[in-house]
């Protein structure tokens, strides 16, 4: 394990200190908590937006704190859901009286911890709603689908919407609506290593790739010989468009997300093919995002996310 760290136990604490120091114009840390909040939180009259999860996915989620985005991000240990008291602190810090929407990636730990935090908030009279993002179509059963890079689109769109005045109920409905129209699929070339364990999360042969891996290296659908970028892009795109039933005339947001050590150059090569295919099928790309949005430490790989737009959502796409 070759990493720029000190003690493996301190990585999250030290990362948060670094983030708080680097971005003190935009955010602040809740003293004693692994929570970063928008500098001006709570924003009067606005529904608060809280997300979070295990660390190791940076810039998610703290990198999406700000106007038209999140009010707070809660950081768990690496690849481990944060505890409810941490989430509860975030909720308290961003609630302006208009309630708080929790954006949760669908992993059992996250769901349970956010549930408990919501119960704690209810006990103190704070209204919360939750949306659980299940965008990873590599998992067959819809309810079991993991939350991956698509989560960032929910941050941005619902973030814009609450800034424009949606109330908690409306924000929750919008979030649910957006989530139901997002599909993602990843493909990995090499694993990442959690500092505390020091061992790679999985192994892949030198000429193998795994289709459908989760953001913590959870197993995917299939291992196969590594394919040219165009083939990979086409396979990801076909799976996602089929799942979302995207068809000629539709508008989408397309996000090619880097998992960690895949160079931007390769992400653009993958994006290129996806964009060509979409345009060939008369599907128009309303907005493009290419880069690391939801990483998995130094995993090599990428994922493709599509959000199938409609008029309701487009209002909040900036």
């Amino acid at each position, binding site marked *: 394990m070759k990493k720029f760290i000190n003690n493996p136990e301190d990585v999250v604490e030290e990362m948060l200190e670094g983030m708080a120091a680097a971005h003190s114009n935009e955010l602040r840390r809740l003293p004693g908590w692994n929570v970063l909040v928008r500098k001006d939180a709570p924003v009067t009259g606005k529904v608060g937006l809280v997300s979070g999860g295990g660390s190791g996915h940076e810039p998610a989620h703290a990198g999406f704190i700000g106007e038209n985005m999140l009010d707070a991000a809660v950081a768990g240990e690496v690849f481990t859901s944060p505890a409810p008291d941490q989430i509860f602190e975030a909720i308290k810090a961003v609630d302006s009286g208009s309630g708080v929407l929790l954006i949760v990636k669908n992993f059992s730990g996250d769901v349970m911890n956010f*549930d*408990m935090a919501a119960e704690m908030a209810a006990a103190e009279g704070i209204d919360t709603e939750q949306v659980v993002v299940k965008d990873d179509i590599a998992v067959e059963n819809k309810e079991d689908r993991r939350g991956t890079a698509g989560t960032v689109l929910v941050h941005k769109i619902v973030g814009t919407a609450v800034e424009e005045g949606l109330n908690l109920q409306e924000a929750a409905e919008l979030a649910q609506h957006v989530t139901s129209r997002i599909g993602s699929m990843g493909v990995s070339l090499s694993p990442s290593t959690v500092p505390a364990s020091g061992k790679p999360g999985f192994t892949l042969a030198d000429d193998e790739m795994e289709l459908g891996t989760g953001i*913590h*290296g*959870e197993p995917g659908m299939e291992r196969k010989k590594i394919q040219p970028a165009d083939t990979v892009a086409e396979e990801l795109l076909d799976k996602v468009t089929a799942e979302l039933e995207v068809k000629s005339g539709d508008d989408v947001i397309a996000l090619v997300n880097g998992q960690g050590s895949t160079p931007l150059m390769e992400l653009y090569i993958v994006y290129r093919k996806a964009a060509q295919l979409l345009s060939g099928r008369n599907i128009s790309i309303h907005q493009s995002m290419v880069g690391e949005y939801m990483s998995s430490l130094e995993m090599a790989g990428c994922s493709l996310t599509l959000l199938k737009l409609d008029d309701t959502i487009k209002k909040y796409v900036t």
Partner: protein
Amino acid sequence: MELTTNVMKYWLVTADEKMQTHKEYLSELDQAIGDGDHGHNMARGFQVAAENAKESTEEDIGALMKAAAMTLISKVGGASGPLYGTAFLKASDKWKGKTSLSKDEFAEGLEAAVEGIKTRGKAEAGSKTMLDVWTPVLDYVQHHDIAAPDVSAKAKESMEQTESMKAEKGRASYYGEESISHIDPGAYSSYLLFEALAEALDKEEA
């Protein structure tokens, strides 16, 4: 049998020792069908819970176990944090105001704990989770005059049976058929917890 406050403290302290000793093994089990953090999660939480118990002058078993629950909830994280935390929290509610527990009182708390896990995890026994240890142990405690070796044996046997199950809950469920022929990490840590209980019972009997 009577479980005193001291025995309950001893349970927490012994559980912690076992989690520390088996930390790497638990994480290895989790590496195979999860994300490899279960040992670290358990060790992190039980360490603080045991330290607090050792220092505590609390006589009320309910209060003692509630403090442990809160620690587990805030320190373990992941899926096992809310599950173990909820289990202890629900049990502590039954044990409120008591400084000693009869077998039936103990069983009542354990039953509440199991209910708590089921509700929190939206799961039943049979899905290759910690419930596959908690449920048979509860059943055993409810229907027998419990003795230390039997509790430990029951927990062990149940834990071993998770090896052949297919995971349907939690992170391990993504492994599908591949989860078979691996012991569930949460089942193993639960076995350690009940082994610690057996040692506490031993202590009580001694």
